[in-house]
């Protein structure tokens, strides 16, 4: 269907601003995780955590909007934040595989969140001091939220790991399944390496020591051994996604696809 429309050809043309794909990647990452977390709304294990999950989802959605607005501006082709969020196909999405993974049980959601928060927090700290003022401003605003997210998911890692035999068994299973998606976060794509060399994006290798120290601290408290030598599954940041993303986008984009141009 899209082959008959001129739009994809335009979108595939090289963009002038090298920051555009990176900002779009940040936007997609926050949006997809926000959507996953919003799926918990009304289904949380207890009312208090239902709200906590929804709060985090809304924080990430707000952050995603800032990135999409900035990305639209960087692209300068007249696309809006809504066009970027609602009218791109799964292969055009640039989020890492981790954030599109299904919620599973509460332990899955916590492990996914912990792995993301640990990276997100350090990334924002780096971006906050970066040379791009708009990106730095978004990072500074989001950093406080990310700090709380990391505190929340870290506490739950400890509670589930050092909790009951059942919570421990569920946490172990989630770690065994999801840890392989953590490596992609800090493995730069060619585009990211280029931006890192230009000094626009923090060097991920420099973020790792703080991330690893936090992981070691939290897992020690949780009495869980730190997984070692885990294969790093890649692909999302290059548009090679798991089948889960298509289903997610079908739901996320349903309104705009069915009623184009619909507004509240």
């Amino acid at each position, binding site marked *: 269907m899209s082959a008959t429309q001129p739009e994809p050809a335009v979108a595939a043309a090289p963009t002038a601003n090298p920051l555009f794909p990176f900002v779009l990647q940040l936007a997609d990452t926050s949006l997809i995780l926000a959507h996953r977390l919003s799926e918990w709304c009304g289904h949380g294990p*207890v*009312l*208090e*955590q239902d*709200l*906590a999950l929804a*709060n985090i989802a809304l924080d990430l959605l707000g952050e995603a909007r800032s990135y999409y607005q900035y990305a639209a501006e960087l692209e300068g082709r007249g696309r809006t934040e809504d066009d970027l969020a609602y009218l791109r196909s799964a292969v055009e999405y640039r989020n890492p595989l981790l954030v599109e993974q299904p919620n599973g049980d509460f332990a899955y959601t916590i492990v996914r969140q912990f792995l993301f928060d640990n990276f997100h927090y350090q990334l924002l700290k780096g971006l906050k001091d970066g040379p791009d003022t708009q990106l730095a401003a978004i990072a500074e605003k989001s950093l406080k939220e990310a700090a*709380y997210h990391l*505190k*929340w998911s870290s*506490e739950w890692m400890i*509670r589930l790991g050092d909790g009951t035999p059942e919570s421990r068994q569920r946490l172990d299973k989630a770690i065994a399944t999801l840890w392989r998606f953590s490596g992609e976060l800090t493995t730069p794509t060619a585009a990211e390496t280029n931006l890192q060399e230009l000094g626009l994006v923090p060097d991920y290798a420099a973020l790792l020591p703080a991330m690893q120290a936090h992981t070691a601290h939290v897992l020690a408290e949780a009495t869980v051994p730190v997984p070692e030598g885990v294969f790093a599954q890649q692909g999302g940041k290059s548009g090679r996604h798991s089948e889960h993303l298509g289903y997610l986008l079908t739901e996320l984009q349903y309104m705009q696809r069915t009623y184009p141009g619909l507004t509240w």
Partner: protein
Amino acid sequence: MNNSEWPLWEVFIRSKQGLDHKHVGSLHAADAAMAVQNARDVYTRRLEGVSIWVVESKHIHASNPDEAAEFFDPAADKVYRHPTFYDVPDSIKHM
């Protein structure tokens, strides 16, 4: 009591302008640390406060509503207990 249920906590929030923590409601949590976090997520979503106190509900001892009459009504006709029957000299400021 069902042991799989987390204990109940009462939440007190101090607003930005306020000097006192006011009771805002209750929630369930496994321990004090979780209760403070849950209170943050449940009761401070709209800038309600800058400080949170939580106390496990079982530690609060209340007066008995059935005894309200003998507890509180006798104070009703003792207006002389209010410090409003003194002539304040003009030289006393800020009263």
